[in-house]
């Protein structure tokens, strides 16, 4: 389908495809098996300017908009969901600074993120605060020209690999979510260390780790926006990044469909190619149709963001829910089409199925997303 992507976006897509073919395919099974972060691939991504696309030109980026990030994330995900999320998590980490950082913060941090000299991560989740992000316990107490952070962040994508973190902590626990604030914390800040590294079902190339703050003194100038705006920073960040998860899901599904099509054209049973069987053809048709619908929805949300539309929370949630459910179904069907081979690690589709699962869970479970969608719809209905 023609999505009228401009030359620059198509160039980004070509670059991602080349990186995927040359550098991701040969190592993805190994990264998956050994739970290894793709440091070398991140360097190649950096050199190809892919970290610049979501950062404004005045801060060393190329400012290609939400659609560019969606296309890049989708294309990298076609090869490996773990590598793609390691890339996309940088955009998530940088988003609080891009959206609500001060001029000084932007000047200081964004150029080194655009060049890929430093990696970035976003830290909100805690053991007791997942979907209920308002339940975070990490404290930030003002002490002179510093804030003192105490607490533990859990399941932080790029944890231990990034050098710059945007962290949500409570400055005023009395006020609940309105008492949260966002901070920039650099690796090496005394009192900041890394905890447990997770052993995951899928996206195993990505690093998922605890961040531990023990009397960690962060300069007051690292506060993003103002005290009490942390939750707003987090929600705006997630609204902007959610289409990225949708894109990841579309890419994983597309990769699985391509493997299924290839296998079905080569595999013969009863003396004929198995893609000549109608039962299998109908599966392939549904897979392709669902992916295209998910892609259309995802790109539409990215375009809303680029058009400067104010409210896209509902649509962003819709894209995430729909695309991730499609990814789970399509990858499961791809394993089915490859049959016994699909179940073996020697073929990439079982990994794609494991990778797909997380897209239904992270950055807001699909159940939470459905609540968001329903709430928005009901609110709109009452307004009429």
């Amino acid at each position: 389908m023609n999505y009228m992507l401009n030359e620059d976006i198509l160039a980004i897509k070509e670059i991602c495809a080349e990186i995927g073919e040359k550098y991701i395919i040969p190592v993805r099974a190994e990264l998956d098996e050994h739970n290894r972060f793709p440091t070398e691939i991140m360097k190649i991504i950096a050199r190809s300017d892919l970290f610049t696309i979501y950062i404004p030109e005045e801060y060393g980026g190329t400012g290609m908009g939400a659609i560019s990030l969606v296309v890049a994330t989708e294309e990298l995900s076609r090869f490996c969901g773990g590598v793609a999320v390691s890339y996309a998590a940088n955009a998530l980490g940088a988003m609080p600074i891009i959206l609500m950082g001060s001029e000084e913060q932007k000047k200081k941090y964004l150029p080194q993120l655009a060049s890929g000299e430093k990696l970035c991560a976003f830290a909100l989740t805690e053991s007791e605060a997942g979907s209920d992000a308002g339940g975070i316990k990490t404290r930030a107490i003002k002490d002179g020209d510093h804030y003192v952070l105490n607490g533990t962040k859990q399941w932080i994508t790029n944890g231990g690999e990034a050098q710059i973190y945007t962290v949500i902590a409570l400055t005023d626990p009395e006020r609940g979510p309105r008492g949260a604030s966002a901070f920039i914390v650099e690796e090496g800040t005394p009192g900041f260390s890394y905890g447990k590294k997770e052993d995951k079902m899928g996206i195993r190339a990505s690093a998922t780790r605890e961040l531990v703050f023990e009397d960690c003194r962060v300069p007051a100038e690292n506060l993003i926006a103002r005290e009490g705006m942390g939750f707003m920073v987090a929600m705006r960040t997630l609204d902007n990044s959610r289409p990225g998860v949708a894109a990841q899901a579309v890419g994983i599904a597309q990769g699985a469909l391509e493997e299924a099509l290839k296998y079905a054209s080569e595999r013969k049973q009863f003396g004929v190619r198995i893609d000549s069987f109608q039962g299998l053809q109908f599966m392939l048709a549904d897979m392709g149709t669902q992916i295209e619908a998910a892609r259309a929805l995802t790109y539409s949300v990215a375009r809303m963001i680029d058009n400067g539309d104010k409210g896209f929370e509902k649509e962003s949630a819709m894209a995430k829910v729909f695309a991730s459910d499609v990814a789970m179904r399509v990858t499961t069907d791809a394993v089915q089409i490859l049959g016994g081979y699909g179940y073996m690690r020697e073929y990439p589709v079982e990994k794609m199925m494991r990778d797909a699962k997380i897209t239904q869970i992270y950055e807001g479970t699909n159940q939470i997303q459905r609540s968001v969608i329903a709430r928005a719809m009901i609110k709109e209905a009452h307004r009429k």
Partner: protein
Amino acid sequence: MKFVVAIKQVPDTAEVRIDPERGTLIRDGVPSIMNPFDTYALEEAMKWRDDLGGTVTVITMGPPQAESVLREAVSMGADDAVLISDRAFAGADTWATSHTIAAAVKKIGGVDAVFFGKQAIDGDTAQTGPSVAASLDWPQITFVGRVRTLDVKSIIAERYVETGVQVVQADLPVVLTILKDANVPRVPSLRGKMKSRKAEIPVWGLSDLGLSPDETGLNGSPTKVVVTSTPEARTGGAIHTGTADELACKLADLLLGEGGDA
């Protein structure tokens, strides 16, 4: 430093077929690509430019559509590009091609090194690089698997030859032909691709290079291709079954029988 990389647009040989009647390449519908060996030459030049400073200029001799490989090279990080193109250059053999490329290198001026791929995958001659060196009267190091050191005055490079590794030192300016062992070519960057779309690529013809028609193209070529043909396709061979002893006897009979026939 001023580096030049001479590249060639070639048909993607994975896709190419030969017309059995006429013995020529069927180019229709075959995608054109940058000669794969040239990507290592380009990477090597850019690597040393990134280290030492300076510029990398890519050049190619070919028809107007060869411009696309120059843009590809710019998207990978070359600073500028020149297309060497003129009807008078058509039909050139390696001698006439080298003479023309050498003239372009002289016109660029102040060049420290010219990088070639070890050979092109269409002609497979591996002659153009060395022949440009001869034409310029510069030293040449061919089949370079690794450049050890390079500075404003000289180069030390390792030639990977059949008998081992030969370490050669040469004064600049120099001509090099690069093997794929030398490096891993980079992926184009977004800024490179944006730049390559807008890049102005000058076209240098016969008069720009100060050459005469009888030293270029078909007229300037001392060699002529008489015929190109496809070798007979290999047949699948016979499969024999049996015990090891039976098979050994069978094989011996067959070999002796064939020997007898010859």
